[in-house]
């Protein structure tokens, strides 16, 4: 099963403002790039050797925040009521 199929099972109240900002210029100096491996919805992907990020399917787990060795991630919660809404959990 591909990640998009799994994401389609999660309910989101999408917010227009992104709640996570990534300084991808800093990512270019990062060798390990743990964000690629720790995110359960693979919001961080490599395109032409560069980290590309989208927080549309973010489950707000915070794994990237802890794992980022470069402090390149400005991590916060979405506005109240927005973001992931687990139906079962």
């Amino acid at each position, binding site marked *: *099963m591909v*990640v998009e*199929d*799994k*994401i389609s*099972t*999660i309910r989101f*109240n999408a917010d227009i403002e992104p709640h996570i900002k990534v300084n991808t210029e800093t990512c270019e100096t990062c060798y*390990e790039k*743990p964000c*690629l*491996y*720790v*995110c*359960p*919805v*693979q919001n961080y992907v490599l395109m032409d050797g560069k980290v590309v990020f989208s927080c549309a399917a973010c*489950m*707000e*787990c*915070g*794994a990237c*925040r*802890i*794992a980022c060795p470069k402090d390149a991630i400005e*991590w*916060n*919660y*979405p*506005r*109240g*009521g*927005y*973001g*992931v*809404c*687990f*139906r*079962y*959990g």
Partner: protein
Amino acid sequence: MVAQVMIPEKFDVIVVGAGPAGITAALVLAQEGIKVALFERGEQPGVKNMFGGVMYYSDALNQLLPDFWKEAPIERYITRHTITFLTSTSSVSVSLKDEEFSQPPYNGFTLLRAKFDQWYAEKAQEAGAFLIPQTVVDDLVWDSNKVIGIKARRSEGIVYADAVIVADGVNSLIAKKAGLRKKFPCTSFAVAAKELLTLPAEVIEERFGLSGDEGIAQTFVGACTQGLEGGAFLFTNKNSLSLGIVAKLSSLQESKISIFDILENFKSNSIIEQAISSADLKEYSGHLIPEGGLNMVPKLCGNGILLVGDAAGFLLSTGINLEGMNFAIASGFAAGQALKIACQKGDFSKKTLAVYKDLLNESFVLQDLKTFRHTPSLLANSRIYETYPSLFCGVAKKIFQVNGHPKKKFMSLVKEEMKGKISMWHLAKDLIQAGRSLLW
């Protein structure tokens, strides 16, 4: 979104986060007639929360809501615990089934957090707690070195209180801002990815040999994480299965394997393939787990502030036991008791609130973390995830295999199986480490 509710500008106590720890604290205080606000950033309590799937018996919960299992949205009670060591082609399991576990008050329950947390928050509301959903709390309000309220992300967001209970979960941005919690390394956290798979109740019961509301909790070590530090779980709900992977962030980083791919790979193991055959994916979810143990426990109180649940790192992970909700509820209960005393005295200083720490020291919360303080370093031993599952499966196979050759005594089989996998020196070292962590 829904229009903002009017909030009084002062409460006796504010709780940040309506998970099991925060709801428990709010319920304790509300039952005492203390004016308590319960802030929750989700649309309603529960929607931001997920866990593996088993809540162990909680004495605190039973004191607050006697015979809670009769009314709470429980899926099944756990009557069988199984630990399975896996290689890609073989497995060895140890299983416990006990009649006592099928009798009230029950030892453990599977449940779904979106339903359970909402139900539990309603109980706090019925007792008089003021629930404020859809509201992020961004910071605390200080008067010199004393917490006197919170800053919510809304217009006129400052709300005052005599004390604030920080129950904002594993990421606890508030505890960090308050200077109670330092930055922890990747080795202190694991990430979980879970699938909720639906199957008719009768198929689950037939497939797993269960009757009525019985359920099983099965955990896996070895090939399920492709040798990474972590494990896998399979729990039975009423009409669904919870299947997931837990892996240390540091381990994922070193191996450069995605948590998503590990779960997909695990599903192709023949044991799992059979267990989840014809089941449909209903929901995929993920969460962070604080696994640092006692070393991770932050400063638990300050002037007008207490930390509870995941925000305080209260989770027991021994490789055999993984308990979080009972720790959250017990810590919320202790925080409620401490604040009850503080409210009676009208003194919310760190000195008075320190009774919270005493209560935790007397309860299993800090005692278990102290007893098992060496397990985080034991679990960092990579041989647990590759060498030993392969050794156990290899020896067990040789014991049962009949192939025309004469049999050998078990110790010779172990020596044979150890060859090329592990030295006597490493085995002895590991046994001492495991013994120190779990046995004595």
